[in-house]
């Protein structure tokens, strides 16, 4: 007979749900670089979905604020002893696993009511715990209810935001007549290409609740920002160095019947601070509104506007990227 561990789950609203865990239900695996744990719980049938939702966490919009309940954590034993009595850490950097999927709910015990509203004495619930690629932190841990925090012109993603970057090279054509051969002083006959490094960055904001079914409602705020650059520091990137080039969404249901999106922002990062004679201009944005210019037989990067004055329109409007993360 399998061993049952008795405990209770403390819910977000302060109530508790009693459960038993089937000790033999524990399964662990590591496939495709993903550490996975499955655990089996027995819960009163009428409380099964309250239990699942409290385990998987929630995200809701309440009074125009994003309110999150983070999923429960399953800690995996980190220290293992090998046959030669040496100790090694299974996962020394991050051993917390979060409840992310419901594998199955199966009714157990005598059936207590019939279709169309079937009910059983208790539910056997199999939950899967994984390690998401983004930080999951409670309000108490970060000291704010916001996923992305802004202070003093600096915007910083704190939780539920993942990022990845790919370095690319940008072909930057130069006009015929601006480069001369060293020995003869004659112009280069063909247009040549200068290489300017850029980074294609993708930030994904995870589990963002939507106000409407079928559409990510945040897109109304986000759409006009495509083609704009950052007016403030964003995650350490200087103003005007990030250009929002595209946005994509993945939409799905959360088990609490909340339609939810993962929103991916694709930015192009350009920093030309090193582009001129190796001189670095720290904390100054020589970003997307600065262009390469030949001037008096030399070259450099200069700001570019519709009237040749700082009052004119730049090519890419600077806006506050904090607005991208508002609900």
């Amino acid at each position: 007979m399998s061993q049952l561990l008795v405990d209770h789950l403390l819910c977000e609203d302060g109530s508790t749900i009693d459960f038993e865990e089937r000790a033999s239900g524990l399964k662990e695996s590591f496939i495709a670089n993903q550490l996975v744990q499955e655990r089996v719980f027995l819960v009163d049938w009428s409380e099964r979905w309250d239990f699942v939702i409290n385990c998987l966490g929630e995200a809701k919009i309440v009074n125009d604020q994003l309110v999150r309940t983070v999923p429960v954590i399953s800690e995996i034993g980190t220290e293992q002893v090998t046959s030669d009595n040496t100790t090694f850490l299974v996962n020394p950097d991050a051993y917390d696993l979060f409840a992310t999927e419901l594998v199955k709910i199966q009714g157990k015990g005598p059936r207590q009511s019939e279709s169309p509203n079937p009910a059983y004495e208790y539910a056997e619930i199999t939950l899967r715990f994984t390690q998401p690629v983004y930080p999951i932190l409670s309000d108490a841990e970060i000291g704010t209810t916001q996923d992305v925090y802004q202070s003093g012109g600096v915007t910083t993603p704190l939780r539920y935001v993942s990022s990845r970057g790919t370095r690319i090279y940008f072909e930057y054509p130069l006009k015929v007549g601006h480069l001369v051969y060293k020995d003869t002083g004659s112009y280069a006959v063909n247009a040549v290409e200068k290489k300017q490094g850029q980074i294609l960055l993708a930030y994904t904001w995870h589990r963002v609740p939507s106000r409407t079914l079928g559409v990510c409602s945040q897109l109304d705020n986000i759409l006009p920002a495509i083609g704009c650059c950052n007016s403030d520091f964003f995650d350490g990137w200087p103003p005007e160095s990030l250009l929002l080039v595209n946005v994509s969404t993945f939409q799905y249901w959360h088990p609490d019947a909340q339609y939810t999106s993962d929103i991916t922002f694709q930015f192009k990062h350009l920093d030309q601070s090193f582009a001129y004679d190796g001189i670095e201009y720290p904390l100054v944005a020589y970003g997307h509104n600065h262009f390469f210019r030949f001037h008096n037989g030399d070259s450099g990067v200069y700001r570019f506007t519709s009237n040749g004055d700082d009052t004119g329109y730049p090519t890419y409007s600077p806006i506050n990227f904090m607005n991208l993360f508002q609900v």
Partner: protein
Amino acid sequence: MASIFVDNYGPVDYWERPNSPTESYQEGEIVVQRIYDTPWDTRWLFIRQVVGFATVVDDDTDGAYIQRTIPQAYFPDNFPEFLDTGPSNDGRWVYCTSLESVEGVKPTGWDTTYDVGTFELARCTFTFKSLPYRVLTDGEVTAYVNNLPTDVYIQDFASPELRPDPSINATYYDPPLYETRILRYVTKKIQPSSQHLVLPYGKMFFVSTDNKKIPSNNGINKLVSSADVIYTWHQVPSQDLNNTNQLKKIQAAIGTVNREPFDGYPAGTLLLTAVNNTPRRLIGGYYASDIELRMKYFNATDLYGKVLNVGHNWVLRFLYDANFTGPVPGNLDFSNSYQYTLLSANGSLSGRKLFDATWFRALFDVSTKDWNNLLVAPNP
């Protein structure tokens, strides 16, 4: 034992099997499996009622419209409730989407007419899933639409000259069960995108302290925001194999912009670019299609990212004003820069526009009515 009511037949009994249902949530989807036993002879009546179906009804008063029998919902006690306020307020969001198998239970003999075995019971395994579109009954739609105010299409522009189509200032009526309000069986997906505009040489300048206006050496790209808006109209019943008549009507609208505000998009901002048709058969053999309408949304923005509610017939134009003192937020008429301007064949409002305007609500109408005659009263 429970029973389900079948139109023109009456109640059909069924029994849910022990250990049914099983519930799961993986990769953003609720999946429920339920196993029912039902009398063998009426199994397909039962199955059709659980899976749902749709037909076109032609009414002398309102013309053709779609009548739907919606699939069985999975919404037992203590199941999470969908709280999005809409035409249906009972919170259901998981529906039967497929019949996995039918197995005969307790053989009773042989049916010589169809040359198959007969059984006392049919054991039916159904899959229920959370759907990305609303599933509403005919009654729910009718009750909801009858409580809506009359559709009044008046463009919210400071000046009538700025309207993409100045003639749109009207009310009109379409019957509740026309699916023109896209209340049910329509999935909407928005894929943001952008397009590169190469700014003409000599229209923008390097900032310098010596007051020299130095143009760029190269063509400069500007990124302009847009979006692909994709509507999928599910299970559109048809009288012919490929929904040909419906597709012909939609085909005529390709390359046109929305004449009226549609689904919250201002007139002129949606351009119908393509249509995909996926033929299917509904349970009971009815021909049907899933029709995907692909539209390009463009709404010009000012320097501050504020939308100006002008669409595809408005094109970027460069201006120069020696007295320019600075940009004004939300002002369409910003000078010394680029400005969106209406383009027409003769340079006046009366000229033919680059993209003609058509009624986009008519794209979701299976009747043959002339939508130009649906206007019932011009607004003063």
